[in-house]
């Protein structure tokens, strides 16, 4: 049983991608930081465990679990039924509000306004899936997929992309990087639940994590972490009682 092993070793191996701000990134002194990092650290502290970071990229988050190179993945995993066939998800510990952001100078109010435009996304994310489906169903826009958020943001900053689909936090960042191209959220896509990923067939570990998540949502700690990095509170239905 994985949970027993973890508790016996007093060490938990947590996989996270440190190149997807603001969830996982490096601070100015090159220490891991971000909302997922803080969540993981809080989790380890509460369980009295030491963390062993497993560096992953987007593509290797799941194989790391499957091949037992990490115990838990905390790296902006959004829950979809397709994915749930491959790994087990905990209850959501956060949510990601995805929006289509665009240049302030371009007037767009709703999906119709996006007709004929090209929207940049980070490849394979749930935003990508949502937009791709919408485009297929006559959405009237193009989707340009970048390998990660950073490249997508760079495309927006340098002028390759006028619209991006990502979290509202990131949309607001672009204007900071390049004042000549301020972006603002235009259309809400949806809100995705973010959960921790665990290898299939470890009910005890999942139960333990669910219990911790419930506690920390209730006591508001998870909301605090979220607010610190994303600038907004968690959605109402997830917010704790504090």
């Amino acid at each position, binding site marked *: 049983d994985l949970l027993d092993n973890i508790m016996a070793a007093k060490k938990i191996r947590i996989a996270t991608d440190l190149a997807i701000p603001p969830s996982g990134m490096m601070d100015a002194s090159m220490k891991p930081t971000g909302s997922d990092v803080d969540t993981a650290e809080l989790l380890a502290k509460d369980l009295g465990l030491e963390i062993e970071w497993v560096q992953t990229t987007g593509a290797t988050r799941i194989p790391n679990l499957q*091949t037992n190179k990490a115990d838990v993945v905390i790296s902006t995993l959004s829950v979809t039924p397709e994915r749930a066939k491959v790994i087990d998800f905990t209850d959501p510990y956060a949510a990601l509000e995805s929006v289509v952001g665009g240049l302030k100078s371009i007037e767009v109010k709703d999906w119709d306004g996006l007709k004929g435009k090209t929207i940049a996304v980070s490849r394979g994310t749930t935003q990508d899936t949502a937009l791709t489906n919408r485009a297929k169903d006559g959405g009237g826009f193009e989707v340009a997929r970048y390998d990660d958020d950073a490249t997508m943001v760079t495309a927006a900053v340098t002028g390759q992309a006028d619209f991006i689909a990502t979290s509202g936090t990131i949309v607001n960042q672009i204007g900071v990087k390049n004042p000549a191209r301020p972006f603002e959220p235009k259309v809400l896509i949806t809100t995705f639940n973010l959960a921790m990923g665990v290898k299939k067939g470890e009910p005890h570990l999942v139960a333990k994590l669910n219990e911790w998540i419930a506690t920390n949502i209730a006591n508001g700690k998870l909301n605090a972490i979220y607010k610190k990095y994303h600038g907004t509170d968690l959605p109402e239905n997830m917010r704790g009682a504090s």
Partner: protein
Amino acid sequence: MGGDLNINHLLFLAHGALWTVGLSAIALVGGGTFGFLVALGRVSSSRAVRLLAASYVQLIQGTPLLVIMFLSFFGLAAIGFNISPLLAAGASMTIFVAAYLGEIWRGCIEAVPKQQWEAAEGLALSRGQRMIKVILPQAIRIATPPTVGFMVQIIKNTSLASVVGFVELTRSGQIINNSLFEPFIIYSIIAVVYFSLCYPLSRLSRRLERTALQKKPALA
């Protein structure tokens, strides 16, 4: 997010560059050793061994290194060998480099004139003695320039080790860029670092090639 580029970022990059150098060295040693066997296999007297070595080369040379990296790290783990990222990166670089170096070296072994083989045979040397005492010492001379040249490719290819969680030069640049969003500065720095690692080797390879060329008429 991040802020401005500071000394910590540069140290982080330097650390990444060290890993790039280290991985290259591992790749060269591992790939060199295994590649040597591949080269011997390619010129083996046994048809089966030749075929095996040739298929190996064909297979690996047709597969992107990224895929090899992925499959050897997670693939090996999936069948029960849980290896560290270092071992996995080393193993896949070895597999990849061996296919290329093996092929380069086979060419060099075959470039030793047939008459040298026959002269050694006529002196009753065994196959092993012929290889070790007559053919390889000559092949090594021919092989040095292209081998040094190929090392440049190795250095650049280590960047793909990021897929197994390795934070080498390119990946550390990406991590920094993803918190700073300064692609120009950061990728330019990376380009300069790669260039300063690779260029001396390119030059060396070119020089060795030239001296080898100048030596040729004297040998003929």
